[in-house]
């Protein structure tokens, strides 16, 4: 009577993956005052918002996302990056009437199983990358809003300074309409 052999093989598949995304914006700074003065005002505004200074770069990190403003190039970068170890085990069983036949069958099965596991890990990697992109997209909208407000403050301060250079400032009125439009009226006497 012949005897049936069963052979079970396992292989663990590990992928060290890096995820992340970056989005860059250029800051349009209209020069109401000399460029250096405008940049100094912007630095002041960003520091007030919690950015930390490192050379010409100001950085703010919040919930895993880093926002960097380069005052030399006037570029704002929102980025996020992470690393993750993804692992899974591929298992295969082979049967045969001799040990070597069972082993060969299991090996053939295992190589297909490893391929499938790699594909699954790759799909998982893509899913995690899409999540990172969505997170950057979400934070980017908030960062843009913050930078818009900072630039608005820079322009307001610049206009006030410019007005005072042109003559004696009699009155300054600031208002924001229901639609969110900001209005600044400065009366000067020459």
């Amino acid at each position, binding site marked *: 009577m012949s005897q049936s052999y069963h052979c079970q093989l396992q292989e663990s598949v590990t992928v060290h993956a890096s995820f992340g*995304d*970056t*989005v*860059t*914006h*250029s*800051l*349009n*700074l*209209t020069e109401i005052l000399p460029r250096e003065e405008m940049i100094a005002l912007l630095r002041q505004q960003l520091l007030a918002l919690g950015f930390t200074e490192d050379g010409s770069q100001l950085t703010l990190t919040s919930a895993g996302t880093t926002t960097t403003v380069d005052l030399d190039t006037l570029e*704002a970068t929102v980025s996020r990056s992470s690393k993750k170890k993804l692992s899974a085990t591929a298992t295969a069983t082979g049967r045969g009437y001799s040990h070597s036949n069972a082993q060969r069958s299991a090996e053939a099965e295992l190589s297909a199983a490893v391929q499938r596991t790699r594909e699954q890990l790759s799909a998982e990697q893509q899913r995690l*990358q*899409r999540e*990172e*992109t969505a997170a*950057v*997209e979400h934070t*980017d909208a908030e960062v*843009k809003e913050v*930078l*818009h407000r900072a*630039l608005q403050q820079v322009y307001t301060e610049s206009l006030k300074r410019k007005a005072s250079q042109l003559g004696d400032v009699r009155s300054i009125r600031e208002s924001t309409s229901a639609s969110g439009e900001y209005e600044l009226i400065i009366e000067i006497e020459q």
Partner: protein
Amino acid sequence: MNPQHLAVKHLLPFCRATLLGRAAGPSVGQLPLREPSAMTAEVVAAMEDMINKAVMGWLIRGIGWRRMSLPDEDETFTARIWDESVWGDLTLRFTAESIDTLLLAWNRHADGTPSGSPHPSSSQWRKMSAVERRGWKETAQKSEAVRRSLKIDAQLAALSLSAPGDLLLHHLVFRSLYRRQSVKAELWMNNPLNAMAFYPLGASRTPEQCQSIAALLSGPLAPLMPWISAEWPALWRALPNAKNLDAFRQHQVSQAAVFTTWITACTQQASEHLLLPLVRAYADQRSKLSARRSQLTRLTSHLPLRRRQPIHRQWAAALAPIQAIYRCHQEARRSHPIEREGTEQILLSGAAPFDLPVLHRDLSAAVEQLNDSIG
């Protein structure tokens, strides 16, 4: 088969189908170029008639029937662009090269599958050794079918297309064949009209091609620019395949190059033939923007932001040349009516039916959005 019988029974139906943009039937033979034994006077007369009708029909179906407002010296008047009083003499001249184009297209069609040495199937090819593969290639290169095919290719690429009619006919045949079957596009790029219109094929244009496009725009085909520009919007839709991100990018870069060439040609000569279609092309941009935007979103939504952004910026850069029209328009408006140059007068009259400031605002907003700048 008797060459005369072949020409009447098969060549003429092939030409008719091709010129009407329909699928041509199976081909059964080839005919030599410019040989009286094959091309009898009757066949040539029938082809001449077909060529005339096809080209004129295409032009009229394009925008020839539309009545549009056109500038005169001090006022605008409404006319069909086809009216002789508008453009002057529109006589199109054809040479024997138009017949050669059709004949070569027919010969190429007949030669599509050389029967001498059929290519092995992919499974057979995989099983062949390197020596066997080399041997097959050498035999195939020596085979009569391949030599014939190479000769047709050389003849197609060598067509000089000197007359405006030849250029239009060549363009018409290529459009039809390209949409219906696979053709070797590079053999048809000696016609600047094809190089200009079929952007995914002429992806990286040579400086010579750019020069010939410029010469074409400001030269013999200048009166036909309205037709040619009217055809552009349909080209993206007409592409049988390759509607991918690369094709989108090439399309944008190509359009920017054509607009730059066009604007340069306009500044060199005060011609309403060039300026008016350009203003209309500018006006067309707004209607296309949202459709293109959604196409781009569809093509890039799966990409990370760091790869999406350069594509958006490239598109914004491609829109820049056409915005020069608005700046020219504003400058022309600022000058005193008496001091205005001919080009400025034509530009202002041509732009009158459109709300250019609104177009400019929308286009600028789109460019700003694509550039993703803050402030």
